[in-house]
């Protein structure tokens, strides 16, 4: 099914097209939101809300960007609004206790995967913008051009954000002995 056909079918409220789109993009969206928000419940809510908004407003989709870009932007705006809302602030306060997040990361990244846990902790200490760049390029494996389209910034901006993000993250994980084994070998 090509994108044009998907859009046409979504406009006709075709439930199979809707299911196809969710299946196709849910992990991409979840990863993007999850690593920025660092909370699984928030990420799951945002992903579901994003698809609902997308299907309801599909007639407003003008085709100037790809469907994935449109979904990503809706997702990130939904996340932003959610975090700004009173309810989300309360949930964020809960997050400060870290309990659920840590459990979740252990579950997601498998037990005793020390390096992933260190990176997860390090990611908490870099900015959301930096997390977004790292998530798109280093976790999701997008190239600079793809990331720049999603972020609606120039390729140069993506490069500099990514450099800053990697540098901050490297320093954070260095503090947590991420490279300890390699250094001791030398």
């Amino acid at each position, binding site marked *: 099914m090509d994108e044009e056909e998907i859009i046409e079918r979504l406009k006709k409220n075709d439930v199979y097209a809707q299911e196809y789109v969710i299946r196709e993009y849910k992990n991409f969206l979840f990863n993007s939101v999850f690593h920025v928000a660092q909370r699984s419940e928030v990420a799951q809510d945002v992903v579901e809300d994003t698809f609902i908004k997308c299907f309801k407003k599909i007639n407003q989709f003008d085709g100037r960007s790809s469907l994935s870009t449109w979904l990503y932007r809706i997702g990130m705006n939904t996340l932003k609004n959610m975090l700004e809302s009173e309810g989300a602030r309360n949930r964020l306060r809960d997050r400060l206790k870290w309990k659920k997040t840590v459990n979740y990361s252990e579950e997601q990244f498998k037990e005793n995967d020390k390096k992933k846990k260190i990176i997860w902790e390090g990611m908490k200490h870099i900015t959301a913008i930096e997390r977004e760049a790292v998530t798109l390029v280093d976790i999701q494996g997008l190239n600079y051009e793809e990331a720049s389209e999603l972020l609606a910034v120039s390729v140069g901006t993506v*490069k500099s954000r990514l450099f800053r993000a990697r540098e901050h993250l490297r320093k954070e994980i260095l503090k947590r002995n991420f490279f300890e084994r390699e250094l001791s070998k030398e």
Partner: protein
Amino acid sequence: MKEKISKYINGEGNKEEIKKLLKKDKEAREYYEQLIEMKAVLSDMKVNASEGTEENVLKKIHKKRFHVPYRAISFAAILLVLFLFLKVPGLKYDYQLESPETDNNVRTTTPIEGELPYESAPEKGFSGESILSYPGFEITVEENKEADVIALLVQYGKLEDGGENIFTYTLNSETLPVVLEKLEKSYKISNINMPEEDGTITLTIKIISP
């Protein structure tokens, strides 16, 4: 140097130049290795959305669609009940007759000029301070006969809200007895609102078809 290495691990920049740098500079090589290792772990940190995402989203979308008629029907039913209660004179009259003598707060007068059904009513309940202990009042006025009432309230009260057929005025302890005395001779009056904390009372006029 660091920025060049960061770009290099994404396949950008002058490869030969970076290779030479990595051979010569130990610090650069260490930085490069750290970034490569960090990137390797990051690329393995993908997570999956819940397997029930499709079902949840589709359920929510279709659930909302099916709910609309029920809401509309419920809303229409409420409107119908309100319409019957407010617009059918018989229904309202019966309701008000249930306790006119036992409840001092409910006072009903027939729309016949100069005649009061309950002679003691003005003296008993609607003079001086005792007025404030009573809830507010609703006056039902027949269409085309509302001008006198409105003129009276404009003179003594303060208009709070105005709709197509409903007007709400605020009266104080001085103006309320005067207005009531004039109105209850000719119009049906019943209670509806509670007095405000400052002692003012709202008076609602409903204009009905004859």
